[in-house]
């Protein structure tokens, strides 16, 4: 059959969906990790133990000001190659680098989760915490039963912004050779001629990942916000 020249022929031989799937995996795993670690940091930061408070404040201030690229490269060169941390990846470098990238993304993003959550705690009226204390609840109970549930409902919007930024930040994992979207794009751009088309495909992929996240979570945020 006389095959008509297909404009998308350049995609042949490249695992485009696979690369974006790695991006999605990086995003989801890091999102869960940074939500947990960010919440722990927030609890330390507003808690009664001075040393933990100082640690969390220092952590956030330092990590916020380091480029993510430095953190992820350091995870690879420092943690893995110098200190010999493999994160249970054995001697499979792809697995190790993927896990190191997740670790770096969690370390970085949790600082921003902590900031957003702290801002959320400030939106909870003082009377809520005072009432909870008047009932005799301890700090842990005040935080986990009364304040944080309301704070989480207030920060869905800002958290959506953090999640979108995280999605975009997963491309930094290209610096240590994780086979995600940006790595594939660099390879394709170097080997194929259709620069504009390739870029459009990748741009479209990221728009597909980020725009719905913003819209859905924006809607959810309005839905669950505590009306005051």
């Amino acid at each position, binding site marked *: 059959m006389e095959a008509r020249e297909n404009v998308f022929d350049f995609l042949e031989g490249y695992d485009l969906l696979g690369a974006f799937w790695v991006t999605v995996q990086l995003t989801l795993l890091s999102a869960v990790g940074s939500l947990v670690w960010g919440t722990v940091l927030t609890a330390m*930061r*507003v*808690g*009664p*133990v*001075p*040393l*933990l408070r100082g*640690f969390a404040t220092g952590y956030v201030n*330092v990590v*916020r*000001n*380091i*480029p993510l*690229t*430095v953190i992820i*490269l*350091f995870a690879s*060169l*420092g943690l893995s190659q*110098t*200190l010999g941390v493999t994160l249970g990846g054995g001697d499979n470098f792809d697995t190790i680098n993927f896990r190191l990238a997740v670790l770096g993304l969690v370390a970085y993003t949790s600082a*921003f989760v902590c*900031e957003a959550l702290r801002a959320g*705690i400030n939106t909870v009226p*003082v009377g809520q*915490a005072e009432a909870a204390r008047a009932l005799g609840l*301890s*700090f842990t109970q*005040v935080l986990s039963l009364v*304040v944080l549930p309301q704070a989480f409902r207030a920060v869905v919007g*800002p958290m*959506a*912004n*953090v999640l*979108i*930024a*995280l999605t*975009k*930040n*997963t491309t*930094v994992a*290209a*610096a240590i050779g994780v086979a995600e*979207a*940006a790595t594939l*794009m*660099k390879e394709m*751009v*170097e080997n194929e001629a259709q*620069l504009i088309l390739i*870029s459009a495909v990748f*741009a479209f992929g*990221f*728009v597909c990942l*980020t*725009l719905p996240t*913003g*819209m859905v979570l*924006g809607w959810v945020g309005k839905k669950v916000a505590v009306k005051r």
Partner: protein
Amino acid sequence: MSSVLYDAQGPRAKQRNVLFTGVFLVAAAALLWWVFSSLSDKGQLDWEKWKPFVGTEAWTTYVLPGLENTLIAAGVAMLIALPLGAVLGIARLSDHRWVRVPAGMLVEFFRAIPVLILMIFGLALYSEYSNVGSDDRPLYAVITGLVLYNASVLAEIVRAGILSLPKGQTEAAHAIGLRKTQTMVSILLPQAVTAMLPAIVSQLVVIVKDTALGGAVLTFPELLASANTMSAYYGANTIASFTVVAVIFVALNFSLTTFAGWLEKRLRSRKKSSGAVLSADDAAAQGAPGAGTGATL
């Protein structure tokens, strides 16, 4: 708020504080000991590896030129992105649909795409369709990526700054017979700029951080890339080089963040302008739903 969350500490709570502090200290000490012992096993703490940073050679040959490139890329990107962002932001507020809608689409599009993708695109673009020398291409590509992304973020900041002004300002301007352009240029923008200053300084932190991408992926010889060259030249002193570079980044960005905070406080207390003062977070929160910016992420 923090003191509202727990009662004044009694003897038992104080005991518990001491316990938590102790446990944390032991865990931290164990971690530090592990790091230090593994580092010295690998010889990374040897004086040989750190000595270059005491002399001037490492600084004048590697660190300072790298820092210079970082600052040049960040500065030029900011200088181009700021006017472009202002134009886009104002265009998004236009009364004309054919100006407002394309500007909005442009802003939302470039905010939704990772800056690294834009940089890779820029690098390939310059090598295929321009006669920029191959040494300059990474710099051009980094600046292109940073401008495209940050102009659209700044556009949102400008828009939020103008929208934060009270409606009376526009109405009064129209009442004394100013045209739309005059209202924007001589009434709204000057007041909005003061309100936006802290957010703009915070955005500079983002730009400085993103230049490191150019070093890691595009072979742009900035500060982070200089750490790689150094550790190759001084016999694999990876830890020493990276520590120095990270400290410089933190110092630079921390002073910018502190300056932004000071500016915001000062502007808020001055109360001269009628508008609110925007921090980076406010600007992100007021931006249209969709692709967000996430403050200084």
